[in-house]
């Protein structure tokens, strides 16, 4: 199973990707809470790609098997300036009150809500790879 979405930058288009996660995750037998966690992570990846990529976003979703475990694999691609994932801010919940800006949680949420995340970024192309396993680790 594979779905490829070419998303224009229009309000709430990230929900199209979330709907695809819901549909494919459900077809794989993923339970509702895992589907919803993956949906929020993919929404954040799409929002980041649209905000920093400056153009249309490509989202590829497919069923996969890794080490004999079924999973939903998602790639979100943009064509912006790129960034160094190692230098991306890692927000901490203990520092939330009193900050003038409360933005910048996207990558933190993606890393916490997905089972595996890998980012490749260079000027002109950023790829965020994410996996959510159908079941919790044994």
């Amino acid at each position, binding site marked *: 199973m594979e779905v490829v979405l070419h998303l224009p930058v229009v309000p709430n288009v990230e*929900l199209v990707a*979330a709907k695809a996660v819901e549909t494919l995750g459900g077809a794989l037998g993923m339970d509702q809470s895992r589907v919803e966690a993956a949906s*929020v992570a993919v929404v954040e990846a799409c929002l980041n790609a649209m905000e920093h990529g400056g153009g249309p976003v490509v989202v590829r979703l497919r069923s996969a098997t890794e080490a004999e475990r079924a999973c939903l694999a998602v790639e979100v691609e943009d064509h912006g300036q790129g960034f160094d994932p190692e230098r991306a801010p890692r927000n901490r*919940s203990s*520092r939330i*009150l009193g900050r003038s800006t*409360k933005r910048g949680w996207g990558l933190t*949420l993606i890393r916490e809500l997905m089972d595996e995340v890998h980012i490749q970024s260079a000027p002109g192309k950023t790829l965020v790879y994410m996996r959510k396993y159908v079941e919790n680790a044994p």
Partner: protein
Amino acid sequence: MNEEIKLSKDLLGPGLGLIAAAGYINNEGGQAIADAATQLMDEGAKTLLIDLDGTRIINSIGVSILLEILERTLDEKGKLAFCNLTPTISKTFEIMGLVQYAEVYPDRDAALAALGGDATT
């Protein structure tokens, strides 16, 4: 997956306001909740209960607006509480630090019993 947020608000009793929100909590959904919170606080509510029954998906921009509501209630020596959170929304609130300062209840009855409101309102 409904993107449009449905919102209602009520002043339940002395100092207690209820906001029920169902739908996508993004910048617009978060702002709609913030506007309702402002109105309830202007009417005297110091404690706000936000019931998210029917909300399945949120984003970090929406949650950042909820954090601003939290700061406002704390500035006013009030309290912010949530109920009917999905496991993912609960985890998102935990990651972003909201649950350190806000109270979370499993459902509206439990919240109102703890906060001193009337569940039938």
